[in-house]
């Protein structure tokens, strides 16, 4: 009975496992994707061994009638190892191309071994090669997907961190908080700002909050609405809100837009707002008499 392509590949993987690992490493070096600057030899070897072990397991159990899908349970090990390896590699700055080439380099050792197998009649080699290609390609595509997913997660996390970082609530003085806003104030950020601010008011027992918009380029109706809502929430918590840093440009624009700030106090600079706030909580700023 003629051997199936999968059986031939499995045979190679099982009988010459370490040979394949070594040659795979060799091809990675040749293709310039081993990144010995980022991973030591033993690390690379261990990663390749684990990947190939999981891959072999998948080939053994997960290919039925020469058909397979890496989403099946039999390939779970490979997916898990790949997730680990990808995380490690993304973290150290490996590019997606390098990662895909890294996996695709597995083809070379498998091809040479198939060719060397004497019991393959000439016509069958093509179908064996095709099967290796299908398996390794699927492996590489899956790797890329995981790789990109991993990157997306990093981007999402950084976005989240930036969002939190960009809305710092600073305690300027006893019971006086300030919130320096910079850049664009979209709905997501406005929400973040508001939550942060209200929690800090409670935590610090603040009585006056200065929202400084010196660093906000444009105040359109939506930004204004966010600011006024935040001010209203601050008032509901019993604190007073001063919006500072209203430039002449923004003042004119807001008037033309017909935005009514109502009872919210506004100041042109954070300096006047601070003087105001300190007075409100009972402090007096005096020039020292000692010269």
């Amino acid at each position: 009975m003629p051997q199936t392509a999968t059986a031939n590949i499995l045979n190679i993987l099982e009988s010459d496992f370490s040979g394949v690992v070594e040659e795979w490493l060799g091809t990675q070096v040749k293709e310039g994707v081993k990144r010995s600057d980022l991973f030591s030899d033993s690390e690379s070897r261990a990663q390749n061994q684990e990947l190939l072990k999981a891959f072999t397991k998948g080939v053994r159990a997960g290919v039925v009638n020469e058909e397979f899908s890496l989403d099946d349970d039999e390939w779970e090990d490979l997916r898990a190892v790949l997730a680990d390896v990808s995380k490690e590699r993304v973290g150290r700055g490996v590019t997606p191309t390098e990662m895909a080439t890294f996996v695709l380099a597995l083809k070379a050792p498998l091809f040479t071994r198939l060719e060397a197998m004497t019991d393959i009649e000439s016509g069958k080699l093509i179908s064996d090669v095709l099967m290796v290609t299908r398996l390794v390609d699927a492996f590489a595509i899956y790797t890329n997907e995981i790789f990109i997913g991993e990157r997306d997660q990093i981007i999402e996390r950084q976005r989240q961190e930036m969002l939190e970082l960009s809305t710092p609530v600073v305690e300027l003085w006893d019971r006086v908080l300030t919130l320096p806003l910079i850049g664009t104030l979209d709905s997501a950020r406005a929400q973040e700002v508001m939550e942060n601010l209200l929690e800090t008011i409670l935590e610090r027992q603040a009585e006056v909050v200065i929202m400084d918009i010196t660093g906000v380029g444009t105040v359109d109706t939506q930004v204004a609405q966010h600011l006024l809502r935040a001010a209203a929430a601050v008032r509901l918590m019993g604190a007073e809100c001063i919006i500072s840093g209203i430039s002449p440009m923004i003042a004119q624009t807001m008037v033309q837009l017909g935005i009514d700030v109502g009872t919210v106090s506004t100041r042109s600079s954070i300096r006047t707002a601070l003087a105001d706030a300190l007075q409100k909580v009972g402090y007096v700023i005096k020039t020292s008499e000692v010269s």
Partner: protein
Amino acid sequence: MSAVRITRFATAVSEITRNAIVHGGGGKISIYLDGRNEYLRVECRDEGPGIENVTLAMSEGYTTAGGLGKGLGGAKRLSHGFEVHSAPGKGTTVSMSVKL
């Protein structure tokens, strides 16, 4: 162009493009300079549901999205030239211009 004029026009463009995203599901924006470099025109076009009554939509305090209802009228006051072309089901095109 003076800083005030830039801020005013940028705010108008911000109002209109946000409308195109919120109500029109996104759209295209084109920027033109007139032949004699006197005017800058920004045209914002979306393929959204369109505006049934443009005059009503331009009026102060009218809103369908819980906003302040000042965006469209405000944007008109912030630009030197302002035109809205819209019909239900036909999308909306807003053209704004500023003197350079």
